[in-house]
């Protein structure tokens, strides 16, 4: 019923309509701009402070991506270690869980003291990594546990080595699990980076969170909105990119079963 064109146009129309209502209501009821700035004021901020906002966004994005990559590598590595050694799993998984259930905001001051206030960016990176790490570990562990035991036996029968088994069996077989964990981790890395920036709140971390705090202190609500918008945009883009990667990797293998020839 919905043609592809309408599917694109309708949401845009709705968005434009909502923005129009917003602009009109603010003017009609004379809402002060430190409560709710009109869209035009937010746009104006983008024009006047766009460069510095983008610079902050760039810093937050950098932290997010680094934390994400670290989380994927360390999460998968630890999951593989757990899968190949029961002992390692029994010894280490309590710490992983402890790290996960302790609120990151509560750990932040400690990490900050440890790495030194002059290296707040490192603290932010570590905190974002801690947040993003767990979904990768959990999904990779679940994926590795779900490997067909008969296939595992087959690999043993043909004397497959550790790396052969990892590359040809464990990774591809657990990929659907892993990718869903990675998608979650992408979003969480951003959340972690922003929360950590808040927690570390100092001029040293000039990411978007800091700009939001700063704008809030000065009652520059339009600027807050602009920064929030950038954050939301980053989150959406990260999620979209990871979804596309997931589709590219899995659609052939897991494709629609009804398409069978």
């Amino acid at each position, binding site marked *: 019923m919905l043609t592809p064109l309408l599917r694109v146009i309708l949401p845009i129309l709705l968005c434009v309509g909502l923005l129009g209502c917003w602009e009109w209501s603010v003017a009609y009821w004379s809402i002060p701009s430190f409560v709710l700035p009109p869209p035009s004021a937010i746009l104006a901020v983008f024009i006047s402070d766009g460069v510095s906002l983008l610079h902050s966004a760039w810093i937050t994005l950098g932290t997010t991506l680094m934390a994400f990559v670290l989380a994927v590598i360390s999460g998968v590595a630890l999951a593989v270690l757990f899968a190949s050694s029961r002992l390692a799993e029994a010894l280490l998984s309590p710490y992983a869980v402890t790290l996960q259930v302790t609120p990151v905001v509560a750990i932040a001051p400690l990490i900050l003291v440890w790495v030194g206030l002059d290296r707040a960016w490192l603290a932010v990176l570590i905190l974002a990594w801690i947040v993003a790490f767990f979904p990768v570990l959990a999904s990779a562990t679940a994926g590795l546990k779900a490997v*067909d035991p008969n296939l595992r*036996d087959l690999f043993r029968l*043909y004397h497959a080595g550790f790396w*052969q088994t990892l590359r040809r069996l464990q990774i*591809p077989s657990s990929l659907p699990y892993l990718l869903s964990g990675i998608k979650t981790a992408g979003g969480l890395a951003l959340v972690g980076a922003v929360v950590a920036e808040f927690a570390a709140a100092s001029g040293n971390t000039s990411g978007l969170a800091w700009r939001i705090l700063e704008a809030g202190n000065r009652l520059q609500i339009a600027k807050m909105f602009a920064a929030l918008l950038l954050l939301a945009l980053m989150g959406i883009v990260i999620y979209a990119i990871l979804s596309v990667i997931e589709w590219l990797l899995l659609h052939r293998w897991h494709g629609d079963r009804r398409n069978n020839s």
Partner: protein
Amino acid sequence: MSHDLRLERLAKTFPNGTAALHDLSAEIDSGAFFSLLGSSGCGKSTVLRLIAGLDVPTHGRVVWPQGLARLGFIFQEPTLMAWASAICNVALPLELAGVPVRDARARAAEALAQVGLSGFTTALPRELSGGMQMRVSIARALVAQPQVLLMDEPFAALDELTRGRLNDDLLRLWSECRFSVIFVTHSVFEAVYLSQRILILSARPGRLLADIQNPVPSPRTPEVRLLPVFNATARDILAILEDRVTC
């Protein structure tokens, strides 16, 4: 006659206390077609796993007088890598052994042709029927030129017609390639149709009830099922099985 393999008083009790197998001895001649027949849960799969070295016996041992043979293993399910095409699945044993990819693929294509799937090299497992998946599984076992082929109820999940065809194809491949087969089944007729010798296991824990030299003449074609000797043998085996199950 020389033998590939000797089972010496094999017994297996699992860590949870399940006694799956009790005191099984047998000699497997090289190039022969053996069936291991028994009701479900009597330890047939356990025997194959012990032979393949995938599990260790609690007592007894598996002896390879001429050294460990090259093994092929076919499971009840096709057990294919869902993300890999038929040819990649078949080439796996060769590539794991370090055969260059190009050679491995060429030999895999030959093996697929042997099982009648030359037109399906790039198909993914989910694009193939159950019978065809099982053929890929057979090709994967054949590609490494096994001396002993271990088959664990390979056709039990297939429909009657497909099963019949695969039985005949298996006999053809066996007569061409001359590996020994240890074929696990719970179907008396399948065992009588396929094998030269039939080892009958009791209910759990599996013990050897009888070791039958199959009198049905070779070559086995669908017509031998109509011979009186076929039915007589099947009846004898059923009697042995039921005798023990009921008492």
